[in-house]
């Protein structure tokens, strides 16, 4: 079976938490056997490196803020590269630090957990991915999907999956029921009927939490 993975699956796998998505992702990866894991180039070359970079920025800002509480996070290097959800994450990290029972150890633990997650992500990409696919997503397909998903990364990744499904039948694995669903794809195709001709087969979507 060819499984086309959404980027979040790798993060669920690497995070190793008690969350159902993380538990299921680890189980799914450990049961890989003869299945093939596919990732699109957009994830390996762009989206994942950028995600890691933003996590590094958050880590650095948290470390700096802990050492110099008077620093304004908004003025720290890299802050402007963070997305709105990263800023929420940064604030949650600082709140985690404030409520930590062992403040001097908090950053050490954060850094260690961060490094362990990054190692798992790197291991996943270098050792567990069988094939990287689709150098450039079809702009027409991507644009149609974006209209309904409103998230550029998701639109490119999903477009890559639909596109590669023409070459090899695949199943998409994601944890995102809100955006990665059949209805969004159908609406996108209905909005541009020429896409139906171009991509007559739509891949099956499976959610990691339901597997």
């Amino acid at each position, binding site marked *: 079976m060819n499984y086309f993975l959404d*980027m*979040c699956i790798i*993060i*669920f796998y*690497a*995070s*190793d*938490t*008690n*969350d159902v*998505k*993380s538990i299921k992702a680890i189980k799914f990866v450990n049961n890989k056997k003869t299945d093939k894991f596919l990732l699109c180039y957009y994830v390996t070359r762009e*989206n994942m490196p950028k*995600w890691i970079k933003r*996590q*590094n920025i958050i880590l*650095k800002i948290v*470390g*700096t803020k*802990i*050492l110099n509480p008077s620093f304004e996070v908004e003025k*720290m*290097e890299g802050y402007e590269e963070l*997305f709105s*959800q*990263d800023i929420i*994450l940064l604030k*949650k*990290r600082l709140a*985690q630090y404030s409520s*930590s*029972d*062992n403040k001097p150890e*908090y*950053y*050490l*633990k*954060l*850094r*260690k*957990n961060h*490094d*362990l*997650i*990054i*190692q*798992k992500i*790197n*291991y996943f990409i*270098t*050792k567990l991915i069988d094939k990287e696919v689709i150098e450039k997503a079809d702009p027409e397909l991507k644009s149609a999907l974006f209209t309904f998903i409103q998230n550029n*990364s998701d639109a490119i990744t999903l477009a890559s999956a639909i596109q590669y499904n023409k070459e090899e039948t695949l199943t998409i694995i994601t*944890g*995102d029921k809100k955006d990665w669903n059949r209805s969004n794809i159908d609406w996108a195709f209905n909005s541009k009927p020429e896409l139906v001709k171009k991509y007559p087969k739509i891949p099956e979507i499976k959610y990691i939490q339901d597997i």
Partner: protein
Amino acid sequence: MANINKKSPDEIKSEILSQLKNGPKSTAEISEEIGSNWLTTEKFLNELKEAGIVFEIISTPKMKVYKSTEDLAFYSLPFSEEIRNRSCALLFAIAEEWRKKGIVPARTMLQKVAIELIEQTEGLKDIPILRFHYGQTLAVRYEPSAKCVPLNLNESQLKKLSELIKEYAGKLAIHAKSKQYQKPGMELYKEKYENLEKSFFCFNEDNFKNIEKSLLKLSIFYPVELKHSFPLFDKFIYCATILLNLKNKELKKQGFAKIRELFPLIWDAITTEYFFYDAEKFILPAKKELFFQIRDNLINLKLSSTLSLILDLESEINSINPTEIETLVDKESLEIRQLFVEGAEEG
């Protein structure tokens, strides 16, 4: 008529050396100052270079920069004549006082005492203090054979110096270093000296934990202003964290050996950048371009050679099956990791 004012080769060489007495200069600068054309100047510079009297520090198609081998400034940085003279004269004054007590002080000790004297007395604050490999230092090194007139210290400076000599007489330089590391702004050095280096000499489980903790602390104390070395340092910390958490004891020992081998290279890169960072504010605007060239040449060289070693190690680490690495299972760690999941869902 034309030959009346012609300078002899020895005169030209002597003028070139005189030009380099106060720091590095480009061929064009020297040529202009001594009134000889570029080709003549370059010819005699080459002869001096072959004789081991001058040294080429920058060689690009557009520019060649030379320094005298007797230049006492660290990395031959283009500090002003006044900074060079005052720093050198202070070191000579301290050495002279020390010798009066019948002691020949170690060079590191001289530097540390000079820093304390500058900080604790009036009238010397114009002499730059810069962070370097072993803590704070002056902009120049002490060379007993150099020609330098000792600084005339006033009564209160001499009194303080006498107290410092008394404090440090018979003690190792590490005593002075350790005292210096207690100061604000020296946390990185303190952590390295007090915790990391001491743990580097033992191969046991407790020490591995101490080393990991100390390295992670260094990552907190890492100065945000040192931007060039940060990617290298950050990769090193990443590699060290993984290697020190390997489940297999033998592999962990091997990993530890690699960390111990690499750390001095990382430290060298960081503290070199620190030196340049601190030195920059003492360089006159006219010499800034030369300063940046020396800095970029040196830092890039250090970073690129170490980076290739780190990248090899990083790729080795990225191939380790995560099941071979210890994970943190405490409640706080799970909460920390849970936030990564939240970020992934939204991203």
